[in-house]
Structure formats: structure tokens, C-alpha cells
């Protein structure tokens, strides 16, 4: 079989905000750029980001990048790398003005400046008055950014491989990354895309949990590709959850519902938050409410046929209040559950929203791995940015408005470093056929016929195991059982088969390969969570309830080989300013 081969200076896997921002920077510099995306680019998950992008423009209230940096370090529970955080906060105003020039219609103040709204965790003067730092295009900032970047890339003549699925990285024996092997979902034909540099920008892996807010496409494909290429994943135990997702569906019911007086009840009709937080009750912090719901379910007081959720009751607020103040929540509940909250309570469960961990990079977007005594040695030719990467600016928890900022700043930074790399590396390195053959074998594995389990039930089981054993209720015992069950599932996935062996638009094959990627990301998450014996940021252990800076102020690194854990120091030294030492977090 003759294999189609294409060659580019830079290859970007993933067409969300990080990938498109990088592609634009490269195309504008006249590099030959290709973007591979399994869905049409404007259907990337960036489109769902509603909140906005943080930048210390000081348009509404006084602000400074240094205060933004302080808030981000504090929000990260001191696990964020302070050099990367300084870089990001300093670059923020520039990337926002660039977006404005690309055509993003930011909401405006009367005098014409970009409007900025206040979000939680934003402060002036290093933790004092509330700041207003988030620039937004109404409630669809991600949509505006994604569409503007896509249009700009079309103008700049970026080459798009739409609806192509990247199977694996191509890597030679010296460790250089040479591109990817992908296949065209339409024709089923594999293709070798050789590139002097490859950037992974495939987004997060929220689909490893049954209840999550992510699009179905967020299956951690790039993270898993990196793992298989021998790159460890960093800080995968840190996963952001919201307490009240619609049970079984995942989308958020905002805190506003409880703010208006809604309360949570268990199967006895008991307002159980009174036991967990006698003062704040249903308005306790997110992690407290999330854990309380999980405990109620674990202890058998869950609701519904499977007793796997609690209920959010709004009925006592009355029809008028619900229709006037919570119309969006009523609409979502009626559409996705057929439940009108005026008449019946809404089933809720904590929902996974964002992965703080990912492929380890430095602030130039280079993927870095430990080599002997060096904790961060760049992998030549390989870059990562956005939710797929861990740079690490979010550390143990992410502030609202910092994820869009992350994808823009580090998509751009990676592209700038790629341009430098290309100046010194003008020729393609020889293709490494063995690596290509390995990727093709992964694809061919799903051509196997005969008996075996189907993909969809395995995917359901994997997501349930992660929800039950690595969600918001984490103890060594619970997670160890989860690891055992994932090991069993891994073997069963190895023996799974698909029934459809057609070539054209065989989405069953795509979903099977996504399942393999989910499996690797799930294992990385639970093994990392089991390893970290402390509570920090979004990682909360019932058996290790305190933060332990002496033992755990360090990044975790999970490797696929033997499911091994390693650790590396946090970069506590910023670029130009003094370090913010760890303190107790009080808001």
C-alpha cells in the first residue's frame, strides 16, 4: 500500500483556541503550517467558553499584571510555576488587544474601552479590594475568539486537515518528533504528516468522568499520544469540579440557583448541607458542597432508581421567582430532563469541568521531560499548549478567565519558539519508518474481527469507575479499588472489537481509538491522585485533609510505562519579581 505523505514546517494537532492562535502566528510569519482536527475547527470546545479572558487593562478598576500574578499564584494553591505565571500575566493585555484587531467584538464601556467584569479570585493590591479583570464578548467569548481566529487563519492560508484523526506521534531513535500518523475519517485512509515541529493542542480529557461539562470530543487524544511517545503527564490529579451538574448529563446549574434560595435534599428529603456546613449551608464553598453530595450518595442516601444523585429543590421559590430570576436554569432543566423546577426538584451531581494537568511544557511551549538529573529537558520538535498542556499556570486550581488567557498566550509563545527552531532546523529529518509502522498497527488493530466486548459499554464503565473512585471523594482505599478496576478494564479494552469495518466515515473506529485515549488519561489521573497524599486546590483527600508543603510542593509526573510516578520541583522563582511564598489560602 502506498502511504500518502505530506510535509510541513509546523503541524498543529487540534483546532481550538490554542492551536488556531499558534497556527495564525506561524502562517503570518510565512511558515508552512497544517492543522489536523477530528472535527470541523469551529466545532472545537473553545466555542463553549462563556466567561471571558483575564487581562490587567485597568479599564474599570485600577489593576496591574503583578496583582493578576499574585491572584493566579494564590489560586493555584502555590503549585503554579511562577515564571510561567509572570509571563502570562504580563502578556495578557497584548493578546487581548491582538484579539480586538483580529475582529473579536469585545463588550464595551460607554467611552469605547473594553468592558471588564469582576470574577471570584480577582483582587487589587495583592489580595485586598475586588478587581475587574475579565474581558468578554457578551456571554460567548470563546465562540467569538474561535471564529475570529479561524477566519484569520483562512486569510493567512493555513492548511486544514478537517475531520482527520491523529493516531500517534512519529519519533525517531534520537527522540526528535517528526510529525504524526493520522487518518482521514471520510475515506479511512492513513496519512503521514511530516513536520519539523509538532504542537499538541487537543484540549482536555473531561470525558473520563461520567458527569462532566465537556463536549464529547474532549477525550484527551493529545495527552494520550504524548504518553505513548514516552512523555509523562504532569499534575493530572488536579481536576476542577462544579458541585451541581445535571446528573447523568453534566451541564452546569450555576451557584445562582442556590444564591436565590434553592437547597439540596437527599432521598429522605433532608436538607443535608445543614449537617456539613451549619452556617453557610447550601452556599458553602464549591469543594464542601461537592463532597457533601458525593458522601450522601456513597452512604446510600442518593435519589433516583440508581440512588446516584441528590436533588436541587427550587419549588419553594415559586413560579414567579424561578421564571424571572432563573429562566436559563428552568430552560436547561426542561430541555434535558423534561423536569420543570417549578414542579419538581432537579437531579444534580458534581460535574468535571477542567483538567489543570497535562503535557509538561516550559513557558516557550516546548514539551519537557526529566532526563537523568535534569527535570525539564525539551523534547526536540515537540510543543504543547492549552488544556492539553501543563505549563503550569493553574497549578492545583484554575481561576475563572485564565483558561482562555492560557490558550492565547502559550499558543502564541509556542509559535514564536517554533519560528526560532525553524531558523536553525531548515531540513526535515529522515522519516522513522518503525515509528510510522507502530502507529499504523494501532489503527489496524481495530480491523480485528471475532468475539469481543463492544466499545460503548466499556466507555460507560470507565467513566463510572472514574466518577465513583476518583471524583470529589478521594481516599486511598477508594482510589486503590479504582486502579484495580481500571487495570481490568484496560485488558478488556485490549480485547474489544468493533462490528463496523467499513473504510468510509467509520466513526466506530474513531470512537474506539478515543476510548484507548480515555483509558490512558483516566489511569494517569487516578494513579497521580492516589500518589498525592495531601489536599491542595482541587485535589481533596478525605484521608489527608491538609496541604503539606514540606512533602508535596512539587509537580507529579505519571508515565505510562509501569504506571510509574515521578516528581519534580515547582518553579517558585518568577522572571523579574520576587517569589510569592506559600501561605494559607483565605478568600
Amino acid at each position: 500500500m502506498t502511504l500518502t505523505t505530506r510535509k510541513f514546517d509546523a503541524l498543529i494537532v487540534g483546532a481550538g483556541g490554542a492551536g488556531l492562535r499558534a497556527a495564525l502566528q506561524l502562517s503570518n510569519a510565512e511558515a508552512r503550517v497544517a492543522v489536523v482536527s477530528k472535527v470541523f475547527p469551529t466545532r472545537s470546545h473553545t466555542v463553549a467558553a462563556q466567561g471571558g479572558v483575564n487581562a490587567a487593562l485597568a479599564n474599570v478598576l485600577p489593576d496591574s499584571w503583578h496583582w493578576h500574578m499574585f491572584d493566579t499564584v494564590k489560586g493555584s494553591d502555590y503549585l503554579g510555576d511562577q515564571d510561567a505565571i509572570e509571563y502570562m500575566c504580563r502578556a495578557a493585555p497584548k493578546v487581548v488587544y491582538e484579539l480586538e484587531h483580529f475582529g473579536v467584538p469585545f463588550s464595551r464601556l460607554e467611552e469605547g474601552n473594553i468592558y471588564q467584569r469582576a470574577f471570584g479570585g480577582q483582587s487589587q493590591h495583592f489580595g485586598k479590594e475586588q478587581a475587574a479583570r475579565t474581558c468578554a464578548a457578551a456571554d460567548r467569548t470563546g465562540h467569538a475568539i474561535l471564529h475570529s481566529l479561524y477566519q484569520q487563519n483562512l486569510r493567512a492560508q493555513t492548511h486544514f486537515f478537517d475531520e482527520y484523526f491523529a493516531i500517534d506521534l512519529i519519533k525517531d531513535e534520537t527522540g526528535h518528533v517528526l510529525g504524526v500518523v493520522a487518518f482521514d475519517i471520510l475515506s479511512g485512509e492513513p496519512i503521514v504528516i511530516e513536520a519539523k515541529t509538532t504542537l499538541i493542542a487537543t484540549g482536555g480529557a473531561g470525558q473520563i468522568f461520567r458527569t462532566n461539562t465537556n463536549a464529547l470530543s474532549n477525550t484527551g487524544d493529545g495527552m494520550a499520544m504524548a504518553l505513548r511517545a514516552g512523555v509523562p503527564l504532569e499534575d493530572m490529579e488536579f481536576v476542577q469540579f462544579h458541585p451541581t451538574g445535571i446528573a447523568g448529563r453534566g451541564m452546569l446549574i450555576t451557584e445562582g440557583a442556590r444564591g436565590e434560595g434553592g437547597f439540596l435534599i437527599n432521598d429522605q428529603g433532608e436538607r443535608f448541607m445543614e449537617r456539613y456546613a451549619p452556617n453557610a449551608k447550601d452556599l458553602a464553598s464549591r469543594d464542601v458542597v461537592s463532597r457533601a453530595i458525593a458522601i450522601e450518595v456513597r452512604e446510600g442516601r442518593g435519589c433516583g432508581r440508581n440512588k446516584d444523585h441528590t436533588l436541587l429543590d427550587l419549588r419553594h421559590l415559586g413560579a414567579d421567582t424561578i421564571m424571572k430570576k432563573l429562566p436559563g436554569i428552568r430552560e436547561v432543566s426542561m430541555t434535558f430532563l423534561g423536569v420543570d423546577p417549578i414542579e419538581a426538584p432537579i437531579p444534580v451531581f458534581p460535574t468535571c469541568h477542567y483538567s489543570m494537568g497535562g503535557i509538561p511544557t516550559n513557558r516557550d511551549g516546548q514539551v519537557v521531560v526529566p532526563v537523568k538529573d535534569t527535570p525539564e529537558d525539551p523534547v526536540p520538535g515537540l510543543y504543547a499548549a492549552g488544556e492539553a498542556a501543563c505549563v503550569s499556570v493553574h497549578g492545583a486550581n484554575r481561576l475563572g478567565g485564565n483558561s482562555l488567557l492560557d490558550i492565547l498566550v502559550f499558543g502564541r509563545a509556542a509559535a514564536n519558539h517554533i519560528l526560532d527552531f525553524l531558523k536553525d532546523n531548515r531540513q526535515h529529518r529522515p522519516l522513522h519508518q518503525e515509528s510510522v509502522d507502530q502507529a499504523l498497527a494501532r489503527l489496524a488493530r481495530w480491523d480485528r474481527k471475532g468475539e469481543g466486548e463492544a466499545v460503548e459499554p466499556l466507555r460507560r464503565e470507565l467513566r463510572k469507575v472514574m466518577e465513583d473512585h476518583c471524583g470529589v471523594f478521594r481516599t486511598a482505599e477508594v482510589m486503590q479499588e479504582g486502579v484495580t478496576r481500571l487495570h481490568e478494564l484496560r485488558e478488556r479494552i485490549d480485547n474489544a472489537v468493533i462490528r463496523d469495518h467499513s473504510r468510509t466515515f467509520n466513526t466506530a473506529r474513531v470512537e474506539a481509538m478515543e476510548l484507548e485515549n480515555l483509558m490512558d488519561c483516566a489511569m494517569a489521573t487516578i494513579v497521580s491522585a492516589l500518589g498525592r497524599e495531601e489536599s491542595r486546590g482541587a485535589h481533596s483527600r478525605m484521608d489527608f485533609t491538609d496541604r503539606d508543603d514540606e512533602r508535596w510542593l512539587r509537580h507529579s509526573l505519571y508515565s505510562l510505562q509501569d504506571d510509574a510516578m515521578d516528581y519534580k520541583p515547582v518553579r517558585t522563582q518568577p522572571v523579574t519579581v520576587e517569589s510569592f511564598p506559600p501561605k494559607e489560602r483565605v478568600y
Partner: protein
Amino acid sequence: MSLPDTQTRWRCRRGMLENDLLLRAFLEYGYDELDQEGRDAFDRLLGYPDNLLLDLVLGRQQTVDAGIARLVPLIRAAAAARTWE
């Protein structure tokens, strides 16, 4: 009853979970019943940006495309009827 063609199915993979769930439900409960005109309208709907698609299905915006307008209540009914995992 034929299954929806796989290309349409893949185009139902969206950037937002809400749209993923709405369209997946419709593929299971409703799409097969559509005549050719209805399927053509569904293809046009899939060409819409995610935010607009969601606004249409949730009734926050109206469309002058009568074919798509006819689909909206069917998609909503499918989402409410679906048995979820």
C-alpha cells in the same frame, strides 16, 4: 429503518456538550423518521455555528428557514425522551 449516515452522525459532534446531547438524542429518536426534506433541513442546521444552533433549539432565537423551524420541537422532544446512561 435505516441508521443515519455516518457522516451526519459525525457532524453532530459539536463544541458544546448541550448540542452533543441534543443532536445525539435526535439521532436516536427522530432522525430516522425524517423524509428527505427533513434530512436536508437537518444538514442545514448542522452547518450553523454552535451558539446559534443552541439558541434555535432552545427557542431563544427564531429562524426564517421553515424546514429547520419544523425540526426544533422534534429535537427538544427527543432530548426530553432520551434514556440517559
